[in-house]
C-alpha cells in the first residue's frame, strides 16, 4: 500500500478556482503531481454522471471547486453546486465511496488555498487507499 499514488481529478470553474490554480502556478507553490484539472464555466455544470464516470474509470478522488458563496460569476450557480454535491455524497455513501468526493470553494486570489486543498486531499485519499473500482477499470 505504501507505493499507492492516488489519482485525483479536480473540476475547476473558469472564474475563481481555475484562476486560483493559475495563481498557485504563478506563485510556484509546489504540490503533488497526482492532480488533473478539468475546466468548466461554472461548478454548477457538474452532473452526477461526471462524478460516477470518473469513479468508474478508477479515479481515486474527485474535487469539485468553485467560487465562494456570494462570489459566483453566475450569481448563484455555486449554491446549486452545493445542494447537488450534498445529494451526490449521500448517494455515494450507499456505494461506500462518499469520502472520495469533496467540495471546496477557492477564489482567484487563493493560490495558497488551492495548493493546500490539493495537498490535503491527496493525503486523505492516500490514507483511504485505492478506489475499489480501479482494478476493474484497469482491466477494461
Amino acid at each position: 500500500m505504501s507505493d499507492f499514488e492516488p489519482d485525483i481529478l479536480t473540476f475547476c470553474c473558469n472564474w475563481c478556482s481555475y484562476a486560483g490554480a493559475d495563481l498557485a502556478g504563478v506563485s510556484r507553490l509546489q504540490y503533488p503531481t497526482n492532480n488533473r484539472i478539468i475546466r468548466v464555466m461554472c461548478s454548477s455544470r457538474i452532473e452526477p454522471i461526471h462524478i460516477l464516470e470518473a469513479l468508474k474509470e478508477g479515479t481515486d478522488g474527485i474535487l469539485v471547486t468553485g467560487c465562494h458563496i456570494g462570489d459566483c460569476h453566475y450569481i448563484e450557480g455555486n449554491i446549486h453546486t452545493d445542494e447537488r454535491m450534498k445529494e451526490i455524497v449521500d448517494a455515494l455513501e450507499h456505494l461506500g465511496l462518499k469520502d472520495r468526493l469533496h467540495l471546496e470553494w477557492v477564489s482567484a486570489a487563493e493560490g495558497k488555498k488551492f495548493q493546500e486543498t490539493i495537498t490535503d486531499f491527496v493525503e486523505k485519499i492516500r490514507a483511504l487507499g485505492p478506489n475499489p473500482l480501479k482494478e476493474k477499470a484497469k482491466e477494461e
Partner: protein
Amino acid sequence: MTEQEAITNEESEEVRIGAFICECGVNIAGAVDCNAVADYISTLPNVVTSVVNKYTCSDAGQAEIKNAIKDLNLNRVLVASCTPKTHEPIFRACVEEAGLNQYLFEFVNIREHCSWIHMWEKEDATKKAKELVRMGVARAALLEPLQSSEVPVTDAALVIGAGVTGMQAAMDIADMGHKVYLVEQGPSIGGKMAQLDKTFPTNDCSICILGPKMVEVARNENIEIMSYSEIDEVDGYVGNFKVKVKHKPRYLNIDECTGCGLCTEKCPVEVPYVEFDEGIGTRKAIYTPFPQAVPLRALVDKSICIDCGACIKACERGAIDMDQQETFSELDVGVIVVSAGFDVYDPEPNHDFGFGLYDNVITTMEFERLINASGPTMGKVVRPSDVKPPKRIGFVQCVGSRDKNSNIYCSSFCCMASLKNAQLLKEKYPDTEVYIMYMDMRTPFRMYEEFYNRARDMGIRFIRGRPAEVTENEDHNIIARIEDTLTNEIVNLELDLMVLSVGAVSPESTETVRQILKVSRAADGFMMEAHPKLKPVDTTLDGIFIGGMTQGPKDIPYSISQGSACAARATRFLAQGKALTEGITAKVDEDICVACGVCVPMCPFQALSIEDDKLKILTALCKGCGTCMAACPTGALEQSHFKNEQLLAQVKNVFAYGEV
C-alpha cells in the same frame, strides 16, 4: 454554404488534430520533457501532427500553426502551453485567421498547472503533461464550431466613484465624445484628495490643483454627476448594462439650492465634522460639504436635525424639503469603470501605538486637516490635549501596512506622505523637532528620492525602528520606546504629538459594489485585475474596469494614470459600437425535452421560459454557465463547448494506467 451546412460538413469530416507543445523557453521545458510529450501525443487517434515550439505564442509559433492548418488540412488545433485566461484569445484569433472556427481550438495548461508547480519532479511532471494533453486530444476530437454573436454597445459609460481617478476617467471618456454618468456616494465629487493639504513631490496645494478639475468635470456637457448616490443593482453584460442608482435624500431641492450658506448660518445644531475634517472641526445639521464642493449644494443630516425649521425660514429660494424620499434612476450603459477609492486603516480597535488611549496620537488624515489652511484650525498645528503648538513631532510609518497583525501589503504612498508633512512642518515651524520612525523608506519614481534627500537636508531626523512601547506622561506627552536598528540603541523619545502614518484599506462600501458587479476580490481585499502586468485595469468581466485605489494602494499620479487607462480601455467598446459575446450557451433538443420546467428557476438570468409547452431559450440573456443542464432530468439541455460527451471524454482519459 449556410452556417448549418458548414457545421454538418465539419461533423462529417475526418477529425484531423494538430498538437503544438510549447516549451515557453525553460518555463515548461525546465520541468516537462516536451519532446517526450509530443512523441506520445503523435501516437493518439486523430492526431495528424504533434510538434514542439520554443514559444508557440510568438509570431513564428503562430505561423507554424497557420501553415499546418493549410498544409495538413487540420480541422482541430490543440496548444499545450500556459493558461487560457491570458492566451486563449490569441490562439483563437490565430486559428480563425487560418480559416478554422475559433471553437475548434483546444487549450491545455501545462505551465501553471504542471511545470511551475512540479519544478523538481521532471519524470512525474512529464507523465502528467502527457495525460493532460491526452485529455485535451479526446476533447478536441469532439469540439464543434460555434458562432459568437455581435451585440450593440450602448454609447454611455458609468463611472463609480468621483475621486481623482474617477474624475479623470469620466473626463477622458467624455472628451472622446461619449456620455458619462459619474456616480458618487458622497455629497461632493473630489474624493480623499480634496481633504489633503499639499501633495508630494511638488508640495502644491491639493485643492488648488483639484478644484479646477472638479469644476471642469461639472462643466463637461457629456458628464452627468450623480452625487450622494449609490449603485443599487447592475444587470446585463458588456455593451448592455442596466444600472439602478439610488439617490439618497439631501432634504433639499438641488436645483433650487445655490449653496449660499444662509441655512447653515441659522442652524442651531453643531456636531464634530467626521466626514471631511476627520472629527477635528465641526459642522451644522444642514451644511455644504466644503467651500470648493461640486455640486456646491447643502444637505441635511437628519440623524441630528431637531426639526426647528430655522433653515426653512432662512432659505430665500424655498429649496428645503424635509419630506424628501430616496429616489432611483435606471441607466443603460455599455461600460463600467470602478474607481471607488479607499479608507485609511483604523488604528482605534487595537489601539495601535496608543491611538484612542492618548489624545496626542493622531492619524495622517487628521494631520492633513490640522495643517490645511482651510481646515478647522486655519492651518495652525496644535495638539489635541491642550490646543498648544507641538515642538516635538514624530511620524510612525507602516501603521496598518507591512504588518502580519493588520495588512501585509505596502500601502506605497505613506513614506512620501510623511516626508511631505515633515517638510511642511519644518517650513512652517523651523524650530520644531521632526522625527520619522520607519522600517524602510520607500521612494521610487521621479523626484521622490530627491524629495527624501531634501527632507534629510532640512534636518528631519530618521530613526530606523518603530515604537515597541508607547506611554503618556503627566504632561500628556508621548513617550515612544524605540530600538534604533542602525545604531543598536534603545531610544526613549518624548514627543508632544505623534502621527500614525496609516495605510490604505478597501472600504466596506466598495465591497458592496464588488459583490453587485461580481468582480473578483484579491487576497488583500481590493478588487482584482484581469492580469497583474498585461491587463492592470481590466477585470475578468468584459466591459468592467477598475482604477486607482480600487485595485490597490497607490499615489495620486499613478491613480490618475489608471483613470486615463480605464477610459482608454472602456472607450474601445463605445467607439466600436459593438462587442462580441461568447458563443457558449445553453441549447435544447426539442425532441427530447418534455417541457417539465425544472430548469426554468435554475437560470439566474431569466433566459429560460416555457411557452406553448415548449422550452424557450433567450440566447441573448444566456451566459453559458451550465446550471440549467445539470438540472435537466431528460438530458435535453446541452451547453455548447461543454457538452456532456466532451466533458466525459476528458473524464475517461484522465489516467492511462501504465500506458504512458
